């Protein structure tokens, strides 16, 4: 076996090619990604509250399931007795007993 330093080049496919300019800048200057980009930030506090920032809109709203459209796809929040505590153009706060937060739903 040949000795030496091996550099494993990552395959070009795996790279996130869809990165926006803002996100790339954010990475260079080590700024948290949610400040510049429009990627969603999901904050769950306990079991009773989920806050999603940078969302596009709600797709589905039912007692047991809420689907929210974002830049990175649809986030599905499941649980029981779900309510929307507050909704503005920037953020949505979901309350109720939450059991699942799913991406790619």
């Amino acid at each position, binding site marked *: 076996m040949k000795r030496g330093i091996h550099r494993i080049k990552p395959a070009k496919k795996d790279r996130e090619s869809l990165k926006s300019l803002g996100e790339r800048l954010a990475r260079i200057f080590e700024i948290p990604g949610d400040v510049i980009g429009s990627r969603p930030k999901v904050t769950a506090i306990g079991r009773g509250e989920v806050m999603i920032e940078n969302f596009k*809109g*709600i797709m589905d*709203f039912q007692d047991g399931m809420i689907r929210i459209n974002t830049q990175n796809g649809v986030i599905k929040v499941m649980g029981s007795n*779900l*309510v*929307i505590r*507050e*909704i*503005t153009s920037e953020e949505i706060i979901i309350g109720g007993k939450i059991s699942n937060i799913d991406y790619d739903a």
Partner: protein
Amino acid sequence: MFLVHLWNYIRGYVILLVTGNSVERFINICSKRQILLWDIVRVTDRSATMKASLRGFRLMRPAAKKSGCRVRIQKRKGLPFAFSRFKKRKGFKVGFFLFITLLTLSTSIIWDIQINGCKPEMIPQVMNVLNMEKIGRGSFKMGLNPKAIASKIRLSVDGIAWVGVEIKGVMLYVNIEDSIDAPPLIKNNQAFDIVAERDGLIVQMEVYAGKALVRKGDTVKKDQVLVTGRLESMYPEFGTRDVHAMGRIIARTWYESSLPVSMEYTQRLRTGKTHQVTYLRFLDGKIRLPGAAPAFDLYEVTTYDKTLTGPFGVSLPIGLTIEKSFEIMERQVPLTFDEALAIAEEKAREELAKRIPPDSRVVDEKVHHYTGENNQTYVQVVVECEEDIAGLRPASIQ
């Protein structure tokens, strides 16, 4: 979060029931248009309830049209709605303004005056000054200048070392510090004599300065010089020396009172008929409540106050003053000699008690009766006292 809710309550909000096939679309449009929604709850598949501000509700129409939803108000909440109920009630408004005016009026006047720290006999004088300045219960606080009042009191009333006037809430406090009178200065080089203040028999003499002209056991008359302040020298060529005579002259004095004995006694009896006049008292004012004046020829009046007591024992300046008059009947009652004598004696004693100075000591008392002119019987009371009869008078210049 609480603050946000409070703010929403103050501004007013509505609870809406949104019905339609796509409630989600309605919510999305609202959020895009900066309409804040909160507490969204799914009711059925086709409806949801939510809360929105009044401004939000007004801007909601296009969103409802676009999404094909029907918006219905379920409930109105918040202060504006709570007040709108009162808008129609005129009496409420009038009452509210009346309440505000009464409250401001009642907190801008003096309700009570307290004078602290001075001798009781000084209080009427202080009250007099306040009355002269037209300050009393019910006067407005606005026009009062505590410093000016204090200096006025200080100047008008004697024997005050310091005055502080304070307005605390609706109370006016006058704090007074008494001054102590300076003792009278005796100038030793001025000639003063001791004279007798009244007739008497000297029982004891203590002369501190001056030359005694009388001795123990002497009878003296009023204004007689007892101790002279002008000392004559044994040798006329040395002249005289003036001193301020001082001393105590204890003498026995007599007070006499004789009164005719009346064999009849006017008895005053209450007939049992009473009449009452009621006044409503507020601050210093009095309002007479309707009612007839008493129609008696002879009557006694007793007045008593009924004061309203507030919480914590605070006496309120509101009350009733009741003047009750009792009709009186006079009746002549014949008396036995002994009874008549006793009554006359009692009267004579009362008359004497007014004349006898308070610092004297009663030693003896004699009562006897005699018949005077017109066959009228008199009773005579003689009281024997011991008292200091020393009085000062500048020595006459010879």
